[in-house]
């Protein structure tokens, strides 16, 4: 226990935690939305994220970016990165739905079977990069160069911190509005509530499921790009641990609940850094899971409850 270091590190931990938390929140959307619609743990989503980070890496190598570019060139590159990451992650998510989930759905397979096929798909995607690219961690060039923008308490807030948090929040708000107000969002909510009845009411189930995966993939793409910009590192299995945390975030906030994903992501991000400042960095992950267990004991459906879905009896 180092309460002293918790106090001295409070502001830096808060900033780091919010940054990581925003990435988790975006990442968690793919878990929470798929769960809301299919009641399925989308286990292969971590690989959707990984492919996004790899796509950004590929793009930066292709453009031959080595040092932080300036001005309009920087904005252009950032935009290009986010588009490419979204395209890559989105198409992998669609591919997964087509290959690993839809055939099982057609046969009325159990959710457990879908979980296993997702695990298989996750192995395949990891290994494709592990075998044909590299198993080592790969460095990415730093795009923003960690320029300090302002100070928050004792913490220095850099431009990439700001980029991550602002983009993350903006995407979350956008998606929340999309689900709450558009016709397509109504379809998602209807399927989440009762797939059979919504089919009878004229909702195209297949299309809704495809869109759900697509949105999850796109958001994971944004998360992947932000991850690259901030931590500039990737690896063939980079998605695994963040994926676990993102799923934990979704559960902590209340799975199927978009606001819950945001809250859960931020809470987990903060917990990781507070936990490592109090107990030492080797206890970073255990802190997260112990808190998750404690929260679920007192609020069995997460902090905000399941809202996209019906509460299960």
């Amino acid at each position, binding site marked *: 226990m180092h309460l002293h270091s918790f106090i001295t590190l409070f502001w830096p931990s808060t900033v780091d935690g919010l940054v990581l938390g925003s990435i988790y929140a975006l990442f968690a959307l793919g878990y929470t939305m798929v*769960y809301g619609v*299919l*009641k*399925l*743990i989308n286990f292969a989503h971590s690989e959707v994220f990984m492919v996004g980070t790899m796509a950004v890496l590929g793009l930066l190598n292709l453009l031959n970016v080595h040092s932080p570019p300036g001005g309009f060139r920087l904005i252009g590159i950032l935009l290009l990165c986010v588009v490419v990451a979204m395209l890559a992650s989105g198409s992998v998510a669609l591919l997964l739905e087509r*290959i*690993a*989930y839809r*055939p*099982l*759905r*057609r*046969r*009325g*397979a*159990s*959710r*457990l*079977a*879908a*979980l*296993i*096929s997702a*695990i*298989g*798909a*996750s*192995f*395949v995607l*990891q*290994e*494709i990069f*592990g*075998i044909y690219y590299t198993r080592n961690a790969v460095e990415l060039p730093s795009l923003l160069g960690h320029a300090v923008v302002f100070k928050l308490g004792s913490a220095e807030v850099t431009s990439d911190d700001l980029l991550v948090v602002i983009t993350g929040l903006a995407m979350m708000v956008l998606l929340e509005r999309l689900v709450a107000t558009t016709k397509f969002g109504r379809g998602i909510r209807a399927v989440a509530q009762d*797939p*059979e009845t919504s*089919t009878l009411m004229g909702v*195209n*189930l*297949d299309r809704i499921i495809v869109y759900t995966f697509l949105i999850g993939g796109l958001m994971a793409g944004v998360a992947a790009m932000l991850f690259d910009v901030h931590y500039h590192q990737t690896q063939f299995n980079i998605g695994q641990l963040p994926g*676990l945390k993102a*799923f*934990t975030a979704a*559960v902590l906030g209340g*799975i199927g609940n978009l606001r819950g994903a945001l809250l859960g992501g931020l809470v987990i991000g903060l917990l990781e850094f507070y936990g490592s400042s109090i107990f030492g960095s*080797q*206890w970073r*992950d*255990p802190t*997260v*899971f*112990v808190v*998750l*267990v404690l929260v*679920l*004991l007192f609020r*069995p*459906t997460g902090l905000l409850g399941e809202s996209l879905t019906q509460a*299960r*009896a």
Partner: protein
Amino acid sequence: MSVPVSELPGRMLARVGQAQVRLNTRAGRLWAAQPWWARTLAVLALFAALAILLPTSPVARVMAPQSAWSIVLSEQIGVFILLAIGLNVVVGLAGMLDLGYVAFYAVGGYSLALLTTRQHWDFWIVLPIGIAASAISGLILGAPTLRLRGDYLAIVTLGFGQIISTTANNLNFDGGPQGISVIPHPPSIDHIKAFSYGFIDGKPYYYLVLAAIFLAVFLARRLERSRVGRGWMAIREDEDAAELMGVPTYRFRLWSFAIGAAVGGAGGVFFAAQANHIDPTVFSYQVSILVVAAVVLGGSGNLFGVILGAFVVAWLPERFRGFANDRILIFGAALVVMMIFRPEGLWPSRRRRAEMGDVGSGGGMNAPLIAPSAEGDQ
């Protein structure tokens, strides 16, 4: 009727049990018609056949040309089958998705490693202690978490599985990241070859693990047909209905967790004794995932299916060691393909298959992805 209320659920469950008999195959009926001594003889003959035939070199050439087959057979396949039998009690029978099963495997492994290296206790004394320690840790982990349902339970157990290797890594008394080395082998019995445990020859261990598997299968079969077993199946199909019928769901789930943990712990003890060295990487959460994969792949709920699944999952990567790099890739693709073509597993339980036709019941782990009836009209 003068039947006490507490008797009623037992009766209803007994009726479920009768349904199982009706669903049995011709082979099953033939088996049941034999006298007890014939059945015992048949099991012993099977044991002898497996013990003598499997580790021979012609089999080894076919099964694992690139590795030491007898060691693979005991240390990897055998232990993995034990784990799958244990997890089947939790996932297949009681219908709870446990993604952190490796925790109990680790408790068993570390119990043996610590007690034999630090206290110099005998393997045979530590074996029951390790099993008991795992069962108790199952109770400790289960008591607060088993009130959670379905997928919440899955993520909490996943969390535990994740914590266990990190914790083993961080603590000092268990050797930290270096783990524990030079774990003594079990004492040899009178220099008989079949009982001289050592490094090079995996056969003695294979006999040991095979005996443990037979014992586990026997106990699991008995449990499955007991009152508790029927209670588990009722919980799996519909927890609320089971609770209403008077099945003490929480207590029975706790039982299944502890029993599953005990078998996993036994697996850990055997593994640590043979491998001679353990460290936190052995107990990574991938192991939990692979055991779940084995259970579902084989046909969750059917003991022999699960054994088949465990064999396939443990053996395939070893068989394709020649492809070194690509083996996990092939394995992953195989998982996807098998789930597409046999979603209920390679060798599904008949009861389970009959139940799967009855869509729309409960919200357990076996609820279909989306009811097939909603799929018809697009």
